[in-house]
């Protein structure tokens, strides 16, 4: 099996024998725990002692039952939430807040309702001082890519869930973050659009070598896209297994569906999620 058991300390260190540095770490999560104050004097341990290293340019997916802390982990890397314990680092520096090097795509889209579709996509560029014409050209190109050509002047209120999701993705891609933090970005899409956007995302990732942290509920999607799949368990949220996906790239969906190794990854991971998680959904 390709399962790599969880290392007790995921800190990347140079190999003293060869003197060669391993692929540089983009994100390091060290002993991160997150405790939330709930109503009354009680507290809830959403994440417990998470250790994880994500290499520069890696595509890493997170799978796990609802409420196991996937979103919370993404927020910590994004700098939106400060962990109760431990540190998260990006490029070796402790994360103290959000920054344009890490672009989030939220589960709830969080589009700006007073801006139309094009305005939303241009927003980040405009904030960063990019000229209007340039931002607009880039915005239109991205909208075409996510299949929303012709909807530039629509307001978020007038869009379906799947369309909003695509605007949110385009809005984040627009300012070109080195790390993409995607929280179930394809959750609300129909199968056809989903496949198309998966391929587009792989394309972008391949061309621009972004680091992607990708939360999903679909095992197949995780295996198809990722170098590494992280399986989490709940109560408290912790990493159960890390699976290296050793499939050649570039990947073609049609080929993979017939590939026994692809199928085996899916079955293995589904088993992991099932194990001891019967009551977890």
């Amino acid at each position, binding site marked *: 099996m390709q399962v790599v058991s969880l290392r007790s300390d995921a800190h990347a260190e140079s190999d003293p024998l060869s003197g060669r540095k391993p692929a540089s770490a983009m994100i390091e999560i060290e002993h991160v725990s997150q405790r939330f104050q709930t109503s009354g004097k009680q507290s809830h341990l959403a994440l417990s002692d998470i250790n994880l290293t994500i290499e520069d340019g890696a595509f890493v997916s997170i799978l796990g039952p609802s409420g196991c802390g996937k979103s919370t982990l993404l*927020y910590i890397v*994004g*700098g*939106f939430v400060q962990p109760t314990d431990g540190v998260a680092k990006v490029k070796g520096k402790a994360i103290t*807040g*959000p*920054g*344009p090097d*890490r*672009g*989030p795509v*939220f589960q*709830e889209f*969080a*589009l*700006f*309702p*007073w*801006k*139309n579709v094009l305005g939303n996509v241009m*927003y*980040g560029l405009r*904030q*960063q001082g990019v000229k209007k014409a340039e931002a607009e050209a880039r915005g239109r190109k991205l909208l075409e890519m996510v299949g929303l050509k*012709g909807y*530039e*002047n*629509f*307001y978020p*209120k*007038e869009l379906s869930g799947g369309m909003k999701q695509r605007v949110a993705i385009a*809005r*984040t891609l627009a*300012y070109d*973050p080195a790390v993409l933090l995607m929280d179930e970005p394809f959750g609300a899409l129909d199968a056809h659009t989903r496949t198309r956007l998966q391929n587009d995302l792989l394309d972008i990732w391949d061309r621009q070598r972004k680091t992607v942290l990708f939360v999903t509920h679909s095992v197949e999607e995780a295996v198809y896209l990722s170098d590494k799949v992280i399986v989490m368990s709940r109560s408290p949220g912790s990493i159960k297994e890390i699976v290296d996906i050793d499939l050649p790239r570039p990947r073609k969906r049609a080929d993979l569906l017939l590939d026994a190794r692809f199928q085996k990854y899916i079955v293995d991971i589904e088993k992991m999620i099932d194990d001891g998680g019967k009551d977890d959904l």
Partner: protein
Amino acid sequence: MTARGVLKTLSPLFACIGLLCVWQVASLRLDTESFPTALEAIKAIPSILGDKGSLLNILDSIRRMAIGLVLAVMFSIPLGLLMGRIKAVASFFNPLMMIIYPVPKAALMPIIMLWMGVGDVSKILVIFLGVSLPIIYHAFQGSKAVEEKMLWSGAAMGMSAPMRMLRIVLPAALPEILTGCRTGLVLALITMITSEMIARQSGAGNILFNSLDMAQYDTVFAMILIIGAMGIVFDAAFEKLRLSLVRWSQPRDDMPLSFT
């Protein structure tokens, strides 16, 4: 426009005419000197508006009302927005507002007059006080309700906290803020008249109560009509402005969809 649409736009006019008819009939039946007929009141309007002194008085009132309103808007919106986003600001101002809220602002007029005289400053201050609270309250509610992920998105784009306040919280809370401003506008008119009724020196309220003292009842009722008309015109104009600013937040049906 369809027949239905015409009917809909004209319905306020019908309401006005209906009200005037009821007035006319009631006044004819009661037949007391202190209750002139609607026609008599309407006939008295041109002589008020034609009189330079009265007209200047009314314009003076509008000027004070505008100054009080603008000052209140400039003060209340930032305060309300800050209260909605920063806990410390909210916990400082909330109790203060709870104390001030039920006090009729016009009741403060005598004290204010004592300190600041009967001139413009006192009247503008009372209008300011009367208008501020609803605007602060609505800005506060609007700002508190801004989705946090929207602010996070802005932060990830590299926007600073003041920038997010100005370019995310403000537009996101705008529909709620403008609802507060609409209430504020009507309150400004009310407080304006009340202040002039207490500090009798000039203004529309002064004309009204002077003519009451002199038993010129048709002028009294004509003034009420003028002030009422002012209220309706201001409110309608503001509503037009409001709708043009927050078209994006209106339900789907209200907005024409178009592919362009």
